[in-house]
């Protein structure tokens, strides 16, 4: 028995030493958690070389099956001040509200952010990173405004539209959007549809609301949502959409041009990481853009896409950096400064963001940096036939209303789709029945809010 005991003790000792050995002498240790290696890559490439005093430990857990949030919840709920707990952790759009509303994330001002610094972020991204009381708890290095992307050749062929300005007039609000869809159906004899399905429109249309899902602890069904239902029901019944889901085979077929589809509602990342790689079946993501363009030739839809603001300015996605309140409270000044500098550099530092935007083509989170990029001549994009995507995204980012997001959006959005949009637009149930079932479902799923 003694042997066993001593063996166990020896093992504990060895393991204990191993975990302490990683903290190097005289360096400031930061623990950073994320759900992709994107932030780690940026820190290692751009930040660590200039900051040898930092010793950063990265932990990456995937978001699949809620692995990341479960990990964060367990640790912050039970032992937030422990060594392994993160100092800085990233938050995705799906759950950022949940964390900024909790006491686990700290006020960024406690680590030295000033109002002046915070004022340079895009309002929509800043709003999403605030709690209900307006305390700034998260900052994003990207902003993800959404626009309407359409195919210029189809617009010209069926609608006689030759410029993005003309196109914008055809989709300036949802009524004209529907009229254009009818016009398109007539002109193309039903071959070309306005959109793939209702899911695409939802991402934009939810920003049409004047209030979010939950206001003062109560469920709110904004009147705009009922208008949304009528719109998608008309699209479905009049055969104006392909009736497919987002991320389905039909959705990608439309991008490749195999099915004639005029419009997609996509944000910044959708342009580079979704639409472009799917513009042709010959596109190979391991090659550079030039090699791909040479390889695909006339196949697909490269160069045929244009951006317009569309009926409403919206935002879709994003990643925020937040701080662990428990660890920020006990950090010394040097560590607080290091945390501030790191978050500042990646979210608001104009020089770095301009450089990063040039390297990656990403749309950054600081309004000031975007102004500089536009002043430097912008970013003409061959995928968009030379159109400058930065200019369009900038106006959407300035207008989108981030205060609509709530921590229960994920759950309520999918309940709305399952209990209202799908059964109603497919004519299975009338709207009142759908709304009643939706309310019951919300009340059963979220016991902490009032449903009337």
């Amino acid at each position, binding site marked *: *028995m003694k042997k*066993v005991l001593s063996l166990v003790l020896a093992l504990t000792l060895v393991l204990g030493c191993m975990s302490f050995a990683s903290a190097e002498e005289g360096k400031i240790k930061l623990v950073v958690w994320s759900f992709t290696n994107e932030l780690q890559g940026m820190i290692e490439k751009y930040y660590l070389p200039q900051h040898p005093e930092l010793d950063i430990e990265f932990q990456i857990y995937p978001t699949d099956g*809620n692995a990341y949030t479960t990990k964060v*919840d*367990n640790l912050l*709920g*039970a032992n937030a001040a422990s060594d392994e707990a993160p100092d800085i952790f990233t938050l995705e759009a799906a759950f950022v509200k949940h964390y900024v509303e*909790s006491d686990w994330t700290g006020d960024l001002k406690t680590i030295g952010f000033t109002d002046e610094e915070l004022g340079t972020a895009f309002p929509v991204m800043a709003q999403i990173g605030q709690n209900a009381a307006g305390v700034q708890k998260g900052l994003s290095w990207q902003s993800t405004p959404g626009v309407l992307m359409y195919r210029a050749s189809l617009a010209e062929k069926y609608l006689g539209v030759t410029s993005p300005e003309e196109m914008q007039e055809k989709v300036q609000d949802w009524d004209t959007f529907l009229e254009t869809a009818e016009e398109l159906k007539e002109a193309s004899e039903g071959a070309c549809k306005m959109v793939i399905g209702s899911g695409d429109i939802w991402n934009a249309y939810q920003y049409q609301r004047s209030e979010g899902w939950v206001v003062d602890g109560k469920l709110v069904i904004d009147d705009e949502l009922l208008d949304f239902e009528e719109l998608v029901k008309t699209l479905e019944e009049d055969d104006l959409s*392909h*009736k*497919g889901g987002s991320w*389905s*085979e*039909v959705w990608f*077929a439309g991008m490749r041009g195999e099915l004639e589809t005029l419009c997609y509602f996509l944000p910044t990342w959708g342009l580079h990481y979704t639409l472009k790689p799917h513009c042709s079946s010959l596109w190979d993501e391991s090659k550079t853009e030039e090699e791909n363009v040479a390889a695909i030739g006339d196949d697909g839809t490269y160069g045929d896409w244009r951006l317009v603001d569309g009926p409403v300015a919206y935002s879709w996605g994003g990643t925020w950096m937040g701080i662990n309140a428990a660890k920020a409270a006990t950090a010394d000044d040097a560590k607080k400064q290091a945390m501030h500098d790191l978050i500042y550099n990646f979210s608001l530092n104009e020089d770095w963001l301009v450089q990063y935007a040039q390297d990656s083509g990403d749309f950054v989170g600081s309004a000031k940096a975007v102004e500089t990029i536009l002043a430097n001549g912008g970013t003409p994009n061959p995928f968009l036939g030379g159109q400058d995507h930065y200019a369009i995204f900038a106006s959407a980012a300035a207008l989108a209303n981030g205060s609509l997001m709530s921590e*229960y959006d*994920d*759950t309520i959005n*999918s309940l709305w789709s*399952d*209990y209202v949009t*799908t*059964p109603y637009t*497919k004519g*299975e149930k009338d709207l009142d029945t759908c709304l009643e*079932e939706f309310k*019951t*479902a*919300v*009340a*059963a*799923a*979220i*016991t*902490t*809010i009032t449903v009337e």
Partner: protein
Amino acid sequence: MASSQKKRKTVSYSHWGYIFIAPFFITFLIFQLYPIIFTFRTSLTDAVGWEKILNNNIIGFENFRQLFDSSSLVYGKFWGALGNTMIMWFFNFVPQLGLALILASWFTDSRMHLRAQGFFKVTIFMPNIITAATIGMLFMSLFAYPIGPVNTFLQSFSLSNMPIEFFRSVAWSRGLISFIQWWMWCGNTMIVMIAGISGINPALFEAALVDGCSSRQTFWKITLPLIKPILVYNLITSLVGGLTMFDIPHMMTQGNPNETTNTVARFIYTQGFTGSRNFNMASAASVVLFGIIIIGSLLIRFVLNDHDKPAKSERKGAK
């Protein structure tokens, strides 16, 4: 006494036995027993949200009251989910057991002498190796709407002039889930059945053959009664697996259309891991499900073992 202890010490290796079985018991205690006790405890609390998972108050049987009170919000959803689960389990299990029995008796029938048995057994067992989630995704894309392999096939052979939206039809959605479960688990049941039949004394079959039994008679009068313990085992494991059905419905239909493919396990998942994270209700539902499975298993044992009793007493009487 002292000398015998000393003597025993030199030859006894029994403590190694404990060391070798320790890993199992340690993992069992940490990863099974503790979570079970924790679930029972959580079911009696007001633990809503991660913040309250450890700091909560015991509120008694309120969560259970809601599950059994027809005026509560979760009542319809929970029992509706149980009904769906039973329907999908039934249409999976009946054909599964039937086909597995037929295949097992063919494979073990010495008169039939099927060729390439190994090949068929492997092929029939194969679907069981693939992860359920993968199969769920596979069928979801096969039956996709409006464009998917099945719809394209139906239209190109003029079997249907419009694409069919399979996952908005209750019959198709439930049918597909039952079918996948059946298709995946049939091979497994068959192997267990073959093992059971192989365990029967061949002398009995030979005697039946000599007495002029037909294949059908042999099956009904000898094979079936003698593999009854295996049947009970199969029914119970299938009941446990069926009532906790989660991955296929979750991947393929998310409980749609209109909650008709929502299972109890999905109900527990949505309560515990979406919305306000109602861990208390999820735990209470798990405890009720646990009870239902125990009752169901006991019932199956009771019903299927019932006929044995007179046989036993007869034997006793004969002695």
